[in-house]
């Protein structure tokens, strides 16, 4: 069964690059959210198998959005994909139950390896 992935990032180029990589490897991008609030709403509506979540976004950031998604669905699988990556922010993500934290920029190998550990 094709795995369905939701992308939450405020940058159009990240959506484009991720979609190219994911579709090349036969994943379905089931939704494109451009801020944390949209990400939470789309998660509830689409029930994806996995979420790629940015941190720095308008309205609500990726950490807050991940917290809300995890409260709604404790089994939610989220990969953080951020330009930020200091020890404190990684610690906050771990506390939320985020298993994988990737730093931008990314390449195909990084993305596919991370997915294979999650689903």
């Amino acid at each position, binding site marked *: 069964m094709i795995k369905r992935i939701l992308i939450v990032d405020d940058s159009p180029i990240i959506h484009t690059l991720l979609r*190219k990589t994911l579709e090349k490897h036969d994943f379905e991008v089931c939704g494109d959210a451009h801020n944390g609030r949209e990400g939470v709403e789309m998660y509830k509506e689409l029930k994806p198998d996995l979420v790629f979540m940015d941190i720095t976004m308008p309205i609500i950031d990726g950490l807050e959005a991940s917290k809300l998604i995890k409260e709604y669905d404790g089994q939610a699988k989220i990969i953080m994909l951020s*330009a930020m*990556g*200091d020890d404190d922010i990684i610690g906050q993500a771990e506390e939320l139950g985020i298993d994988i934290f990737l730093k931008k*920029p990314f390449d195909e190998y990084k993305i596919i390896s991370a997915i294979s550990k999650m689903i």
Partner: protein
Amino acid sequence: MDKKFYQPFCRSTKDIIKEMAGIEIEGMESMEEEEGEISSMGVSSIITFAGTRKGRLLVDMELGLALYLANTILGEAYTDAMDRMVLSTVSEINNIVSGNAITSLNNSYSMDLRLAPPVVFTGQDMVISIPKINSLSSQGYTEYGKISINVAWEGGNK
């Protein structure tokens, strides 16, 4: 503010552009005092960050370089630097450069800095006025055009 709070942005700009687009930036080894106005070379992006201090990074580049970066990173053939995806590429490069530099500052000096979403704008010879704040600039050169960065911290350069 000590130069050690500015230098990571030069290193990060060179590293990230090389990693994302495979091109070397010549120069951009040191930073010089900038006062008053900056005249944009074509496409500019500003990102602010705040924690124990507040600051911002301005990345400015020539139109040809912006187009080359967008076309290389996205595998497309844009010809208009005003295209939303070209502007978005410059904006995301600024985001990643800043994220990389402030990650290093946070880990080294516990500055607790967090980024705000970047802003991008275009217009050759547009004047960017930055009154009442001292900042440092650095110029770099690529075969596709010039790039400069300007870093400012609240409280100035001392």
